[in-house]
């Protein structure tokens, strides 16, 4: 299933998601093209993580359509969506605390056992720290190591689309730089398409080819990373205040 760079890989059209009676996504339209790094920025509670989870069918969108590589995945169960080639490093990392680093990575490859050895080598190359810690329990890792493990675990399934939820949250600047470098590398060297939610808008916009701004369950702005970095509205709301 070779797709040329630039083809739309993921399309969301009019997606609404509810938590009980609360409408968290109020009609989202966005696309991610093959080979891109796309970032989604926005304040806490805007619905960014809900958007990523909706992509994975947990919870499922109530209205609207999500198409991945030409296939409608809106109503697929979560475990099937992952098998289509979407992997997520979720909010809060969700490392299995009582399993070793290696076991966490093995679980990441549960849908792609054939390429396990090859992917493991690649992940250890990207994050040598994980190799050193491979026998250690996930719960004993530092925050930065857990983030590396979360990304590594997602990569183990050989996804074509990598979803990252706040990869920089709570990490030291040096570690953030390292993780962003890895994201850049896997995109450039392996052609991995990345869709990333970030609060660290400055770094995210510098890394991303394109970006979306989300406010209160709706996309309010979109443009290239550089374009949004220069946008006065974005600067006022997300860049000059916090970072």
């Amino acid at each position, binding site marked *: 299933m070779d797709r040329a760079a630039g083809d739309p890989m993921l399309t969301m059209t009019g997606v609404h998601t509810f938590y009980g009676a609360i409408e968290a996504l109020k009609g989202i339209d966005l696309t991610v093209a093959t080979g891109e790094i796309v970032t989604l920025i926005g304040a806490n509670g805007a619905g960014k993580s809900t958007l990523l989870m909706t992509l*994975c069918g*947990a919870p499922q969108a109530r209205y609207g359509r999500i198409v991945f590589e030409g296939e409608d995945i809106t109503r697929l*169960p*979560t*475990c099937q969506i*992952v*098998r289509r080639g979407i*992997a*997520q490093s*979720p909010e809060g990392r*969700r*490392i*299995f*605390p*009582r*399993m070793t680093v290696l*076991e966490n990575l*093995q*679980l*990441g490859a*549960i*849908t792609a*056992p054939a390429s396990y050895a090859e992917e493991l080598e690649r992940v250890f190359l990207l994050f040598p720290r994980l190799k050193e810690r491979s026998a250690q329990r996930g*719960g*004993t890792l530092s925050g930065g190591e857990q983030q590396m493990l979360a990304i590594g*675990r997602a990569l183990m*399934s050989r996804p074509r689309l990598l979803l990252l939820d706040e990869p920089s949250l709570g990490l030291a600047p040096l570690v953030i730089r390292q993780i962003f470098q890895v994201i850049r590398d896997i995109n450039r060297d392996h052609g991995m398409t990345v869709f990333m939610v970030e609060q660290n808008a400055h770094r995210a916009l510098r890394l991303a080819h394109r970006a979306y701004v989300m406010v209160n369950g709706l996309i309010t702005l979109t443009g290239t990373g550089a374009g949004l970095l220069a946008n006065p509205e974005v600067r006022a709301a997300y860049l000059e205040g916090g970072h």
Partner: protein
Amino acid sequence: MDYFLQQLINGVTLGAIYGLVAIGYTMVYGIIGMINFAHGEIYMIGAFIAVISFLVLGLIGITWVPLAVVIVLILTMLFTAVYGWAVERLAYRPLRGSFRLAPLISAIGMSIFLQNYVQLVQGARVKPLPPVMSDVIVLMDRAGGFRVSVSDLQLLILALTVTLMIGFTQVIARTSLGRAQRACEQDMKMASLLGIDVDRTISLTFVMGAALAGVAGVMVTMYYGVIDFYIGFLAGIKAFTAAVLGGIGSLPGAMLGGLLIGLIEAFWSAYFSVEYKDVATFVILVLVLIFRPTGLLGRPDLEKV
């Protein structure tokens, strides 16, 4: 000393049977955080399938004991696995995501249903099974002392239990199914994000627990020679006690708990009173719940995340 040794042998045998049933409780609790109240009935059904299978094998002329025992074990595990699957499918899965008490109540309903179903189709009377293995090895027989012996059957029970426990521990620790089970236990949502079919993993957990309970049912049938439709209740609660004593959710805990409950029961019956052996078990359940709710090998939920 001789008497003590004999009780030790009896207690360990009993403990092996409780341990096998306790594993089913602890595995299901580990993965969905709920007690499978119908688990004792699965064990009882296992005992009935054993009696029926032995009779049928006798009728069709398979009387060579090792072969018969193996066939009965396989048949029973297959059938109880299906029952375990059905219990999950009917009593648990439709209620997943509903309030926590709902599946417990439906499982109790399932337990009552299975008891009555067996009573209806098999009758309420006690079912006997003629001894299948009756050879005894005398270990110690001093003049004036107590004769210490171990039967072939006791050795079989121990060997089978140890083999199954090692096998299951390996499955949980090393196979991809075991990893998926542990992943579901720790974070179901994340497990599904990795492509693990959570429903299927939970089903397989019920199936594995039920197959072990089936083996326990075969053993108890051969050991005591009589069964009825009500044996699942008491054995279930005792195995549950064993699981709690060892630390619910912990596989080695269930084995240890089963062993201890078996020993306590055997020694209590030998040195105090047979009538109150159940009381001894349940006093332990109460004490553990009051003073050490996490059990002997259970871990308190203190994890750095």
